[in-house]
């Protein structure tokens, strides 16, 4: 009897371990009390509503959205041609390029942030916004290359030759037959990149300067001063936003095929 219960109980504990913190935050965000606490004291929407009134949250949210959308877009502009070149041509340093492109995944964000700050922002006098933009592009690039590569590898290369023999140019063949067939992969890469960028803390922490910060960094700063449940409320909102995006992607695109 105990043996039969062992597996389900283990599973339950793992699930609690994974989802528990999230549930606590969600519960805390509906608290009626004045400090971040669990179990929540009472029930109210006041902290959820408060989130929308904090001005710095609004600014940093816009900043984070700009970095996530703009940085992912830029990463795809670089990553799609790179992935295409690696999948279609036998390049002399293909493996090296693949490794370098993957580097931002492996190198800790703290180091990337410090290096960017010390050797780019400070000496060149790069603007903070531009530095953040470049850093986020670089961070998202590996995901863009990998996910797009995966869908390119599933696509036969002879359809491009077929298009050329039917009168298309090489470039035209890319837009007419390659792009439409890797659309799902590109959208998946975009979502993955967006979420990665949006949730990024260490690199942004180093590069954030006066008046320019991303939402997660702003939240950290806010918590150091104020310890009310609005942070929990904001976290819950962001979590539901992410879940919503990924769920929609899975539902409409079969997201998990590419990641």
């Amino acid at each position, binding site marked *: 009897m105990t043996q039969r219960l062992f597996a389900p109980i283990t599973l339950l504990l793992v699930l609690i371990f994974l989802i528990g913190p999230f549930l606590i935050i969600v519960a805390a965000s509906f608290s009626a009390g004045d400090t971040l606490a669990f179990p929540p004291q009472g029930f109210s929407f006041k902290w959820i509503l408060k989130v929308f009134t904090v001005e710095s949250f609004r600014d940093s949210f816009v900043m984070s959205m700009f970095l996530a959308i703009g940085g992912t877009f830029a990463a795809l502009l670089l990553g799609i041609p790179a992935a295409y070149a690696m999948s279609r041509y036998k390049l002399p340093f293909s493996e090296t390029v693949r490794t370098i492109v993957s580097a931002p995944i492996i190198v800790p964000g703290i180091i990337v942030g410090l290096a960017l700050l010390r050797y780019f922002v400070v000496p060149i006098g790069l603007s903070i916004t531009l530095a953040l933009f470049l850093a986020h592009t670089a961070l998202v690039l590996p995901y863009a290359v990998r996910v797009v590569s995966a869908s390119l590898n599933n696509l036969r290369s002879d359809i491009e030759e*077929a298009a050329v023999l039917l009168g298309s140019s090489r470039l035209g063949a890319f837009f007419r037959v390659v792009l439409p067939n890797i659309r799902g992969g590109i959208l998946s890469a975009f979502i993955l990149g967006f979420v990665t960028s949006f949730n990024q803390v260490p690199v942004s922490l180093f590069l954030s300067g006066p008046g320019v910060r991303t939402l997660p960094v702003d939240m950290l700063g806010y918590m150091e001063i104020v310890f009310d449940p609005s942070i929990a409320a904001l976290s819950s909102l962001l979590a539901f936003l992410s879940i919503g995006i990924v769920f929609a992607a899975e539902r409409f695109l079969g997201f998990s095929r590419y990641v």
Partner: protein
Amino acid sequence: MSDTSFLTLDKLSLAYGNTVAVKDLDLDIRKGELLALLGPSGCGKTTTMRSIAGLMTPVGGRIRLDGADITRVAANKRAVGLVFQSYALFPHLTVFENVAFGLKLKGMRGAELEAKVASGLKSVGLAAFADRKTPELSGGQQQRVALARSMVMEPKVLLLDEPLSNLDARLRLEMRTELQRVQKESGVTMIFVTHDQVEALALADRIVVMKNGAIEQIGTPEEIYNHPVSSFVADFVGFENIFAIRDGKLVAGTGEVFLSGKLPEAAGLAWRPRAISLGSGPLKGIVRGVSFAGGTREYVLETPLGIIKAEVDAALPAHALGTDVAFDLPVGSAAPLKRFG
């Protein structure tokens, strides 16, 4: 170059990096001909086909088509069609859109486009499938779409890469007839690449047998089948028993053998299994294998000449495994080879 040549390959050389795939190949192809490029993998047949399509640039030589030098003409300006082995249909487009692809690039629109695509699909028996997505189709149907997609462009030359190899036996026969019909109706010059001698013999007007990037023999199916010029071609078209001739004697693995009958002036002799006479003759062998093949019985004999394969009428009494059997290699029914090795 002959006057009747429509497509001419003139000292064509092709290479992948430093690896030479085809060397100084000369070939004249007539208008409206159905030509097979036959050879084992790596013989350069596919490379030759790709260079005609413009997907590969020659390192030497010229390609002329319909009076014009197309050696440096881009693939999308050549009016050469190619049906890929994998069919290479566009998976995001319907059957109709696949066939319309090239026509649209030519600027064809509206009713003219619809009519042209419809007649193209009708000619391959797929009129009812216009709105299907291509991955839903069977292999045979996909190939028909690929054929229609190339044919509506009215190419001067249609190339086909292993057109029958991905189909099952029944479909293969059907497609073979289909290809011959399309070719006769349209009069298009058709070149197909294959490693299967049966396909080449059944389909082609003329066969080019290739070996190591060069042409080994050109001829009609009858010529290739009955009169192979070399041991390579003989082996490729089913002569199982092939021997060299040296100093007027047949050379076998174990030494030289005298045969009844005068040897012709040739580098070698080849016998099909059917040409071996079993039961009497000056030579002796032991039966090492026997299998019933319907109308005939196939034997594998261990002999002083090495392994001999024979095929005789199944109505004749069978020789049991392990028994001695007399046989003859009748010189009169051998194919003389001009080249050996």
